[in-house]
């Protein structure tokens, strides 16, 4: 019971942060006079006060030292965040049904980028900023941020870290405390954001647009403030955004080491980086060639679309350089596979992550070698260091669960009466965090056509994907709820 109180207290802190963020949306509300300031204030204050109430009433809740509570805490926090994130949509009347609002909010918080809006330019600017901001915070992992920076948590923060990103990259922890690691990462994140806002502004974009687009690009989210995503931007702006997306798929620790001139440490992640870039390169070349020769785009267009769209897919961002739903089927299929693959571990991207793909394939090689030399001792290596069996099995389990979750998702969506292509597209897009699916939900399309049930399933899949499945699944295990 104490555990529950303690959890409520943290949810309170979380809500206070979320309310605060909501209130910042007042700036565009006043600046652009879009007439939403009262609604935004109400939602922001409500969230903030509720959080404050929880915090104050459970301030003295005793600490707990239970692993299960840590998982519960992380799982609940994400759910609550998405739940309260619906307020700006609902109060301003941009969205009428709760399911839609929840879908949009979760898609933001989990930095997926699947949207129920087919056109967005009519939406008040404050709500647009809220949309982008949820992605920026969610992409970084706001839960982790709050947990890491609150002192005296009473539980091992590393546990929470694994609960949020299930053992994604065990080498990420390079400092003595979680808080410092998170601090470094946050520093890089903010820096990158500012840099790209500046670059976009310098290249002729309005600050307001630059802020919004950078927020969603750097967090690998993918909400846009234009009806046709980023297709209408100038060539330079698009390439800058491609750069932003490319960096969003790189491990933050790697970037930190790079920026602080600790280049000797770069070697630790070199394999993953190479894998990430190689996959990107091969895919991009294929897409460019396919666009040029199969779809008769001009070289200029195919280069633009190929380079920008491929990185957007691989980092599971979901910004669109063109209406991909009309593209040649093999390209869309490649995109589906690519979004499953994802960027580097320890970045904002979703999907399986390059490191896992690397370990999975190297493990196959190891098994072949073992067959030939049954007595040989030849571990799977990453950056020259042997990978422990634990990590390998962890990767395998996550891979399988990923596949299973996607499969169940497809099955459920099909039960809701959505056809096979669209189910496959939507399930994979939601779990991997890419956003646009196939068919009506793909390209410049949206998820508005889905039934309510299907939207709820997608919402759930997005959360699943963001938490890498394990944590949420654990909450559904009967053994989790058994005493002792």
């Amino acid at each position, binding site marked *: 019971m104490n555990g529950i109180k303690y959890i409520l207290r943290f949810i309170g802190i979380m809500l206070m942060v979320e309310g605060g963020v909501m209130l910042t949306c007042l700036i565009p509300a006043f600046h652009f006079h879009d007439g939403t300031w009262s609604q935004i204030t109400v939602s922001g204050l409500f969230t903030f006060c509720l959080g404050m109430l929880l915090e104050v009433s459970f301030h003295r809740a005793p600490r707990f030292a239970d692993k299960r509570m840590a998982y519960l805490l992380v799982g609940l926090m994400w759910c609550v965040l998405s739940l309260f994130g619906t307020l700006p949509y609902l109060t301003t009347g941009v969205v009428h049904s709760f399911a839609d609002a929840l879908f949009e909010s979760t898609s933001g918080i989990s930095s997926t980028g699947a949207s129920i809006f087919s056109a967005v330019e009519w939406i008040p600017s404050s709500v647009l900023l809220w949309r982008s901001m949820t992605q920026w915070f969610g992409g970084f992992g706001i839960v982790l941020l709050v947990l890491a920076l609150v002192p005296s948590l009473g539980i091992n923060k590393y546990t929470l870290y694994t609960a949020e990103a299930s053992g994604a990259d065990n080498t990420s922890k390079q400092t003595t405390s979680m808080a410092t690691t998170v601090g470094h990462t946050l520093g890089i994140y903010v820096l990158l954001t500012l840099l790209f806002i500046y670059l976009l502004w310098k290249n002729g974009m309005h600050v307001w647009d630059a802020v919004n687009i950078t927020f969603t690009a750097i967090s690998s989210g993918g909400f846009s403030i234009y009806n046709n995503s980023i297709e209408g931007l100038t060539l330079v702006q698009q390439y800058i955004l491609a750069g932003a997306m490319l960096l969003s798929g790189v491990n933050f620790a790697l970037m930190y080491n790079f920026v602080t001139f600790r280049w000797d440490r770069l070697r630790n992640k070199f394999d993953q980086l190479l894998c990430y870039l190689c996959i990107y390169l091969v895919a991009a070349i294929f897409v460019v060639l396919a666009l040029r020769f199969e779809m008769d785009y001009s070289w200029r267009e195919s280069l633009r679309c190929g380079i920008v769209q491929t990185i957007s897919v691989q980092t599971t961002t979901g910004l669109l350089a063109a209406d991909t739903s009309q593209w040649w089927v*093999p390209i869309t*299929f490649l995109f589906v596979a690519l979004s499953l693959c994802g960027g580097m571990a320890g970045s904002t991207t979703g999907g399986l992550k390059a490191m896992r793909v690397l370990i*999975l394939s190297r493990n196959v090689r190891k098994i072949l*070698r073992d067959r030939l030399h049954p007595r040989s001792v030849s571990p799977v290596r990453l950056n020259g260091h042997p990978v422990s069996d634990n990590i390998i099995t962890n990767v395998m389990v996550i891979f399988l669960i990923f596949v299973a979750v996607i499969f169940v998702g497809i099955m459920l969506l099909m039960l809701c009466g959505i056809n096979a292509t669209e189910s496959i597209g939507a399930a994979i897009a939601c779990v991997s965090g890419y956003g646009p699916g196939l068919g009506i939900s793909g390209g410049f399309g949206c998820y508005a056509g889905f039934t309510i049930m299907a939207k709820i399933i997608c919402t759930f899949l997005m959360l699943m994907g963001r938490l890498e499945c394990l944590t949420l699944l654990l909450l559904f295990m009967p053994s989790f709820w058994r005493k002792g």
Partner: protein
Amino acid sequence: MFKNNLHRINEWPAERLGLRKFNFKLIARITGTLLMYFACSMVIPLLVSLYYKDGAQFSFIVSGMVILLLGMLLRNIVGRNVRYDLKEIESYWITFIIWLVVPMCGTVPYLVTGAIGTVTDAVFESFSGFTTTGSSIVALPEELPLSLLVYRSFTQWVGGIGLLLFVVAILRKLGIGAGQLYEAEFSGARHRKLHPHLSKSVTRMWTLYTLITLAMVGLLYWVGEVRFGDAICLALSTVSTGGFAPDNGGMAMLTDGGLVIVTVFMMLSGISLVRLYQLFTFRWTHLRHDQELHCYLAILFSAVALCVVAFCSVGNGFKESLQYSLFHVASTMSSTGFYVAKPAHWSFFVSAITFLLILLGASAGSTGGGIKIWRVIAVVKYMGNYFTNMLHPNAVTCVKINGQVVETDYINKIFAFVFLYMAFIVGGAFVLTLCGCTIPNSICMAAANVSNLGPSPLINNLGGSLDYAMLPNLAKWTLTVLMLAGRLELFALIAVFSPAYWKRRI
């Protein structure tokens, strides 16, 4: 010194290329012997041809001669002065080469009779046969000579029990132990052999396999009232979980009784041969505690139940739904690939279940394909343990099936297998999309062929066609590779493409 040089001259010039030294002569000799046996087996379609007077007898004589000559060439000329020692690495190569050469030679009768026009098509059909897949480019099989249909099903029957078991028998004559080959063929699970002597257990398996087939022929002929030739075709294709049907009319020649017979035999062939042997020799204590068998039956019947519910809920009659679901689930799970006329209304839910069943496949050690139930049990148990370990980081767990511990190394292999399986499906599906198939359709087609299922109504329902003849050549070759990969349980196929298997260690 001189002797040493002489020895070198006899070797394949592998060293200069930095390749491993192989005992190619032995491989050639074994392959040749196998081909000769295969040529002799042409007698069966020949007899059918003579009995039914379908006019294909000369084609079979010619094909038989061609294959025989080829076999003799390999056996007696290439494989002269052979050294009888088989290193482990060569046993992997034998697996691959035999699975390549024999189905290739299997194309001869198709080409000679002229039933299939192009080489690509013939190769596709032949591989589809030997790998017990059952995908066919023949749109109207009933227009082919009956003997050719028997031949087609016969390739499945041979492929079902595994060409390598032949090899094991041959090797016994040569006095070479062939434990690795046995493993290569039955790598799904570590089974206890039926007999301490490998060749004896192989013989027992053959006997059992033949007896089941004969029983089915008899039942179909007398109880099911099927034409004798058709009964042979059906039996050969069912027991091997192949799926070449002698007609394209959805089993139209079968009475209700016949359908039941085929259904039951499909279910049986999804069970491990070892377990079947125990079943028929009344050693039931093993069966009673076999988790894999329990699981197989549980999945089978719960899938049937779900399908029936799904069909009834969209407005089909109960009897019709039940009959179809039983047949469909048995066919899919055992990876046979027969299909009958569908109920009037299809349900998406059945499609989803079907896809799941395609992936799961049959029991390890059976002739069926797929990931295999045994592996699935191991993986699921391991996942359970993984969740336990998340909550209790110090917990020590291990996976046990039938009270036998499955080592972590082996689990890792299973995981890798599943990963490869998915990779093959995705890769195959990608190539199929290049050939103009829709995404769901290519995924299903790739999955059905890797699992050696072949035609599945699922593909039809996703807007595709079961007529593989319409596909471009690229797709046919891709599917051929997928079928072979599935039959060789992936590793054996990709092994020969990994450098370690042909490069000499320095």
